[in-house]
């Protein structure tokens, strides 16, 4: 186990999440992609904490990341609901009236 290994895995998680966020049409699936990206961030933060700066700040950072993930997801559900309710769609492509 080394910092490089942790970061490579974190990068992989982040990239996979990014792929999902870009490629998925359904809002909830996009959110899953975003969650995976956060997953990568969490792993990277832990790696940095352990291998480079094992101070409490790093843990607080992890807490903030997790809190962010939680509240973002909560908002995501609300947004998906609102979208579903007022437009009866759940896909990003179908809500593209506002453009140019």
């Amino acid at each position, binding site marked *: 186990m080394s910092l490089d290994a942790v970061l490579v895995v974190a990068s992989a998680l982040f*990239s996979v999440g990014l792929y999902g966020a870009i*490629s998925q049409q359904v809002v909830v699936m996009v959110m899953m992609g975003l969650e995976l990206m956060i997953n990568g961030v969490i792993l990277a933060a832990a790696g940095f904490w352990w291998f480079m700066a094992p101070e409490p700040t790093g843990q607080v950072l992890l807490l903030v990341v997790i809190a962010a993930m939680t509240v973002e997801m909560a908002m995501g559900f609300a947004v998906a609901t609102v979208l579903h309710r007022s437009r009866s769609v759940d896909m990003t492509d179908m809500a593209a009236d506002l453009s140019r």
Partner: protein
Amino acid sequence: MLDVVAFWVLGIVAVVSGAFVFVVDSMARATYALALSFVAVGAALLLMDLQYVGLITVLMMVMEMAVMAVYMVMFMGMNPALMPMSMVHDNRKALAAAAATFVLLAGGALLVPWPTRRGAPSGDVTAALGEAIMGSKMLVMMTISPVMVATIVAGIVLAAPRGRYDRLGDDLRRRPADDPQPGGVGR
């Protein structure tokens, strides 16, 4: 040595199950895959002496995935187990972007001459965290609470189809409340 093996196993599990999120053909399975990925990362955190945070990660994610499953059934009218789906656009570009991002990030991770470790973890990591929260990083945690409040309010404002005036009348005096499904507060 053991932790190296463990880490790689967990890492591979996390990445593969993460990839599965977008491979499986139903949302429910995707949810499970995502949960697995988080659990694997949570476990990896434990390897790095982050017991508290690791645990929290696992717990939070499992809960969240449960919520997600429920949400999909309730609001989207999907049967998660049964509905196969593949709703993808611009797959090629997305793959390219992801690959490029991976090259950039992993390349950076491998090529950057990371500095050596500053200091060592204090004896009780969790206690140190507690002190930080109540001390130097108090403002951060203090701010998280209004964030939570705001999230709740915002979620309700966005998602609730009916407000108090719909239920209790404009003067809030209607009893019982006018609910499509009788029950709950204000009956």
